């Protein structure tokens, strides 16, 4: 399984997502992880990047919201604990189980 964290530099939450993923995937040899910086609006459009941070699992966004426009912006995740700037640990664990 390949995880990609897409982000833009000013996002205050992408590093936290990376840390959370590292934590959740510790000892998982079947998972590889990389990051992809999105630096321009054109790039965001081309990649279909709808907000930072975005997690792709084997190239697919499991939190995709239909109709959400692409662009250099932050993204809000609705978690069991309320809105957040990144998915909750339990959401990630469930996805990666």
């Amino acid at each position, binding site marked *: 399984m390949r995880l990609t964290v897409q982000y833009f530099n*000013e*996002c*205050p*939450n992408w590093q936290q997502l990376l840390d959370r993923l590292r934590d959740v995937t510790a000892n998982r040899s079947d998972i590889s992880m990389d990051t992809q910086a999105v630096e321009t609006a054109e790039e965001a459009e081309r990649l279909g990047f709808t*907000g*930072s941070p975005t997690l792709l699992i084997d190239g697919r966004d499991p939190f995709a919201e239909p109709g959400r426009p692409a662009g250099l*912006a*932050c*993204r*809000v995740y609705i978690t069991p604990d*309320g*809105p*957040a*700037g*990144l998915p909750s640990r339990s959401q990630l664990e469930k996805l990666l189980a």
Partner: protein
Amino acid sequence: MPDQPSRPDRWPTYLREYHAQRAGITERLLQRCEPNPYAWLLEGITVTGANVLDLACGSAPTFPHLPGARYLGVDASLQELEVAQALGRGPVVLGTAVTLPVPDCWADVVVCSMALQVLTPLPHVLAEVRRVLRPSGILVALIPVSRPLTFADRRRYARLLWTLRRPRLGYANRGLSSVLRRDGWLVTSQDSLRAAYPVVHPSDRRLLVDGLYLPKVPEARSTAAAAIALSWTGSTLGIPLERLVARLK
């Protein structure tokens, strides 16, 4: 020093530079006041279990006063958000007031502390607030105004402004309660407060001056303005604030 935002559309650039250089300054200034303006802003507002969007949240000083809320702070300054995160407040996300990263009708309460007077273009900001508020939702805003002040406060501000060579403290948006009414909002309460800022140490005087939006004021004038406050040591300066609570008609 950032350039003067002589046109409203230049305020975002000015604010970005100001808050990058002085992240957390508004909170540092207001939290020294008595009574606490953030507590005053939110007293009587029921937020338990409510979705609360803190618009232009800065360092998220309202967060401790919103227990039980499903809080989300949005600000255009990464540096301010980093202060908020370091204080364990959040979640916070980067975003502008005209493109809020939340779904339609998500918020029960939109809080906007010390920002509505400078958010531009205001019609777009209010349209975005309208979009994210539930039909029964409310907007709670704290804004700087010109009253109430004591006679001594007025004399001090007059001297301060003279030293800064400024006729007044100007913002991009004025007359906000009237603007809201014209925009179709029902202003359900409008209260004012003299928040007393204690002047004790030299750093208090500097913080007071640096905490003002003073585009294109040279450093020497800011320093001179802080110096004239020397005679205020041991007293307080009133910061006049207004709390607006409004809902959609």
